[in-house]
């Protein structure tokens, strides 16, 4: 239960982070969920929320080194006096920020779907997410976004492409080294590579 909340909490933080996204696209954070988050992180004020959000942003999105954990880590769940909010979950994520980011990224797909039944998310939403989530760490995403916007034939991004893009960013460098033509990348990414090569040629 606690873990589930944690995921929700963190992931919704992601959502809150991108507060500028069109509200119509993303399911708004419901009140009960919000309350669970607040109690989980022991957040009582907007300023505390802001601190928590910016912590997570720095850790996961900007990939900065985590905050220093206080030496006297309290075993109890009790909030330490010098912490602006309960950072237990934060430390968990900090232990392996890569995995945490992957979970966040995967969650964002579900989060961004316009309806639970749909199999893909709209192009505009996807590119907006990529810009926010991936671009700070992986510069190649900027090119991908440009490519997707330029080509009219990609209307939606399905789950497969969504998750493969993260892998693609991990594997392929901005100069396209690490890409293998006979790999099993989704054809959209093959076409992207083609497009980029032609462009730089």
């Amino acid at each position, binding site marked *: 239960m606690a873990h589930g909340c944690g995921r929700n909490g963190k992931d919704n933080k992601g959502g809150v982070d991108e507060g500028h996204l069109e509200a119509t696209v993303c399911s708004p954070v419901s009140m009960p969920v919000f309350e669970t988050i607040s109690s989980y992180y022991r957040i009582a004020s907007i300023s505390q929320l802001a601190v928590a959000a910016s912590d997570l942003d720095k850790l996961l999105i900007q990939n900065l080194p985590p905050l220093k954990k206080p030496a006297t880590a309290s075993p109890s769940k009790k909030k330490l006096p010098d912490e602006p909010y309960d950072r237990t979950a934060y430390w968990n994520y900090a232990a392996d920020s890569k995995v945490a980011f992957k979970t966040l990224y995967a969650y964002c797909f579900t989060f961004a779907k316009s309806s639970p039944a749909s*199999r*893909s998310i709209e192009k505009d939403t996807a590119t907006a997410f990529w810009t926010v989530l991936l671009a700070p760490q992986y510069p190649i995403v900027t090119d991908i976004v440009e490519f997707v916007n330029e080509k009219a034939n990609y209307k939606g991004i399905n789950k497969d*492409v969504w998750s*493969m893009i993260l*892998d693609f960013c991990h594997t392929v460098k901005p100069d396209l080294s690490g890409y293998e033509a006979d*790999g*099993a*990348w*989704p*054809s959209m990414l093959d076409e992207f590579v083609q497009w980029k090569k032609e462009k730089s040629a």
Partner: protein
Amino acid sequence: MLYKGTTNLIIENLNRLAQEDLYPVFPTGASSEPTQQSHEAELLLKALRKVWDEHKSNVVKLSQLLNYMDRVYTTAEGVPKIQEAGRQLFLKHILQPPNAIHSHVIDAVLKQIRLEREGYVINRSAVKECVDVFIGLDTGDHGMSVYERDLKPRILSESNAFYKNEGVILLQTCDAPEYLRRVETRFISEEERTHHYLSPQTHPPLRQLLQDHLLTANLVEVISMLGSGFDSMIDTHKYDDLSRMYRLFIMVPSGIACMKKALKDSVVRRGQEINRTTSEPTAQEVDQDEPTAESSAKGKGKVKARPTAVSQTLTLALKWVQDVLDLKDQFDQLWGQSLQSDRTLESALNDAFETFVNQHERCSEFISLFIDDHLKRGLKGKTDSEIDSILDKTITVFRFVLEKDVFERYYKSHLAKRLLHGRSVSDDAERGMLAKLKVECGYQFTHKLEGMFHDMKISDDTMSSYRTYLENTTPPDIPISVTVMTSSVWPMSLAPTPCNLPSGLLSSCKSFEKFYLNRHSGRRLTWQPSLGNADVKVAFKSRTHELNVSTFALVILLLFEDLPTSDFLTYYDIHEATAISDSELQRHLQTLACAKYKILKKHPPGRDVAKDDSFSFNEDFSAPLQKIKISTVASKVETSEERKETQSHLEEERKYQMEACIVRLMKDRKHMTHNDLVHEVTHQLAGRFVPNPLDIKKRIEGLIEKEYLERCDDRKSYNYLA
């Protein structure tokens, strides 16, 4: 003391012999006449042999005399026995490099060889005897003979220079067949030479020299020689020259590859020529229509389909297939006769045919048309075996076609027409063809075609029981014959063609429907009047004719039945009354009013039917025959729009086939890597068409989205999701 004396004796003797026999015959160099030179060399070689023989017999005698010394003294002192010493001394005083005799003799041998290569006759035995001396003399260096040490390297380097030059000269002076002839002679004569008067062990290196200089160096030049190379040999059917070329080329490793390339190029070039000539008339038509497209259309040699008269397409198709068959025959003959049925070259041939056949974008259609034509009329008066061989040949061309599903599409529609219109000449030939296709492409391919045959047979049975059934009831006014076609098997569209049948026909249809649905409840019958035909008696002024017309034409004719002869029906009237679609109506009106038999009169007269024309019955019609078969004006061949539609249909079908294939494979294997999967799918579908890896990838992605498959963590393989 005695030993030393003996050796001195031998030396003295040798010097004397050299003085007497060898020095006088040293080449004077005075004459440049080859025969003279040859003679001089011969004398020297003979003299050497004489000296050697004399020396040998002397030494043998001495060694016999001094046998005791050999046993007691020589072994103890560690000096060579007399015989051995004699040999060494001979070497030292006659055949050792600083000695003039040595170099003169070697020069003489080389000169003789060169002279013989240049075509002069020499005394081979003299050379041989001398060479034997060289071979027999051991240099004392690991059993290496003087021949190996001194003569062989010189011969080889001399030959090297000679043939290097020869290669260049031959290339400049001879055409390809002549070149090959000369080269072959060289090979034979060199082999003889080594056999007759040189050591056999010299043969391999010499042969290598020949191969290097006469073959490997000039392969490409010879094969592509303008006006006499490979291509023109084929043109002029010079099978002997070609087999010589094959014999020679196969000796060197790069030769076969070179021939393969030449062969392939030649076939592809010829094939493209055929492609070009058979699309030319269409190209001209395009030119008339769109002059701007001229260059591009001609340049490609492929032309987008244009409405052409069917007959023209047919002639083109027949010509194309016939030409391809002829070409195939020609090259098969060549391959068997001259190329010793070489497997590598056969695959090159097949490759080449595959290349150009598939470059012709209408290859499938043309092959199907060719078969259609032969099964419809071309087989009359031919024996069964002739039919069989024609069809067999067609199959060989068909084998080159990559997009077999396209062929199937055309074949299906051609077969359907043959069956429905009873145009097929021989049922056996039809079935024979089907069997051949089955062998070639498997059960799947002919499944539907067989279904069509099956339907025809069932329909016959149904009709006979329908007639029995009618005997017991009141038959409708118009007897009909029905072919029941399984909709999934026949290529016709399922959608009913609009046509208002007259009441007489309708009641016939109803009667059959009642009968049929009684026997097979739950089935649905859709009438396809567009495919039927009818016999109708028409009373003209002069006499009554029995006309065989299509069902549509019948429906049109019946509109005029009760009309006063002078009355007109406008196009619009007919359209209203029959509800036949515009294109079909125009076609059938054209048949009735503008073709060979003018049953109707068109106002105003003309060749094409326009929407504001009107028609009247042509009472004055007369024809010599009582029964007239009025064949419908053929519809135009596929227009480019139709073609596009066919294409998209095809692509759709291929998508399903790829998906089905992927799912089948994954269900079986549960887990596969991406490359394996693509490879397997390509392999399995190769019998029908060649799938593009990118398309397969897209299908895989589609299946991932539909959650039939999932990606594994390594990103390069997939799991099947049950």
